[in-house]
């Protein structure tokens, strides 16, 4: 949809800079046109471990962009990791979701359905298996530090109420590739009665993000097209607030 204010002043903010979590690397590289894909800044998964660290690193990346730009943050709220990020001279565009699970499942609604069906779900994805953490890895890190008995007690305290381990991927190939690793984690988690499931998501959410970015850059969409939807726009001078993600 193309629209403009009565004064005709509304113009798409360009150029476009994309800063995204590594978890979205495959999808973004595949879906973006070459000229945008080559300049995407992919950030380390490790930023998730300390949410405060994520905020700082992303703010630095945003502030380092010299020209006023449409800055796409390929993240969700991520445990408040994005809270407080200031747009500065730029316009920020962010998927309006709590975390990347919605982005891997293909929609916010799909995530909420899963969440409501089984709140006690631990999600595994390509990204988390490669560079993030999971219960088995955590246990392996605890053992040398605390001894195996204490390590297991600590694990029990953290995971005993979960019910399900889910491997989620946006395509079948990733499910196949990461199944052996996920099943290994699943066997470990059987001690708490976790059941193992796989969910084939889709790239629909990211596809829509890419479409919106291209339309904004081309001026065939305006920021009004994003109001109250699946995306959050923060105008220059604005700041990301937690409540903007609540829906």
């Amino acid at each position, binding site marked *: 949809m193309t629209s403009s204010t009565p004064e005709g002043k509304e113009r798409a903010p360009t150029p476009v800079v994309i800063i995204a979590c590594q978890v979205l690397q495959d999808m973004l590289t595949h879906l973006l046109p070459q000229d945008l894909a080559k300049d995407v800044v992919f950030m380390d998964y490790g930023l998730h471990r300390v949410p405060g660290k994520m905020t700082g690193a992303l703010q630095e990346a945003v502030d380092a962009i010299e020209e006023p730009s449409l800055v796409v943050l390929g993240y969700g709220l991520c*445990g408040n990791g994005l809270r407080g990020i200031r747009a500065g001279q730029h316009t920020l565009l962010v998927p309006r979701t*709590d975390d990347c699970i919605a982005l891997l499942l293909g929609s916010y609604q799909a995530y909420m359905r899963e*969440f409501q069906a089984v*709140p006690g779900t631990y999600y595994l994805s390509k990204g988390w298996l490669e560079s993030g953490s999971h219960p088995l890895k955590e246990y392996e890190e605890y053992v040398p530090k605390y001894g195996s008995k*204490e390590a297991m007690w600590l694990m029990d*305290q953290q995971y005993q*109420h979960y019910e399900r381990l889910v491997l989620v991927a946006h395509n079948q190939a990733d499910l196949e590739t990461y199944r052996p690793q996920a099943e290994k984690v699943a066997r470990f988690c059987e001690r708490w009665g976790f059941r193992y499931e796989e969910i084939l998501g889709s790239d629909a959410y990211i596809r829509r993000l890419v479409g919106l970015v291209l339309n904004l850059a081309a001026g065939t969409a305006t920021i009004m097209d994003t109001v109250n939807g699946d995306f959050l726009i923060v105008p220059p001078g604005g700041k990301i607030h*937690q409540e903007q993600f609540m829906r």
Partner: protein
Amino acid sequence: MSRVYERIGTAIMEGDPEKTAKLAERGLKQGLSAKDILDNGMVVGMGEVGVRFKAGDMFVPEVLMSADAMQAGLGVLRPELLASGVQLIGKVLMGTVKGDLHDIGKNLVNMMCEGAGFDIVDIGFNADPEKFVEAIKEHQPDVVGMSAMLTTTMRAMAYTIKAIEEAGLRDRVKIMVGGAPVDAAFAERIGADGYGSNATAGVDLAQEFVSAA
């Protein structure tokens, strides 16, 4: 002040249950009151744990071990506290909200509230709004505490407060909220009476509520 207090505080910070229990016993033998051992030793140690956790100098495993140590110490002191007839200062009802099954923080607040002299009603984890409402009717607490660990679950706090309002119980209880993604602005927005950034802050809040009542 007895050296025992300081050593108990340290044992809690080190997460050593055996040492904490032993020191608590020694303190009692030396004639210190259970209440003083609790207030000047264990609660101080646990408070420091909260500060260090917030600052990123301590992590979940260490906090869990400290909580375990405090539990062991409380086990020694509890009979003494009951026998000494220390007056309960109020009743706190605690639960993690619907969809949230992370109860480490909630259990910590419970323990600290017990230490401060509250009667605790723990309705567990993943408690839906109706469960809170029914429990408030049944137990008539002074304070209701809710906790959530995720941004996906924190919104259930708002639904729970709404359910308490609709049941006509809102003016009978003070509501405090806490958990990793929660902050004071959120607490205010959803109509809670207060927000605790850690277990000690939660207890302070509960104490403030009952002393103002």
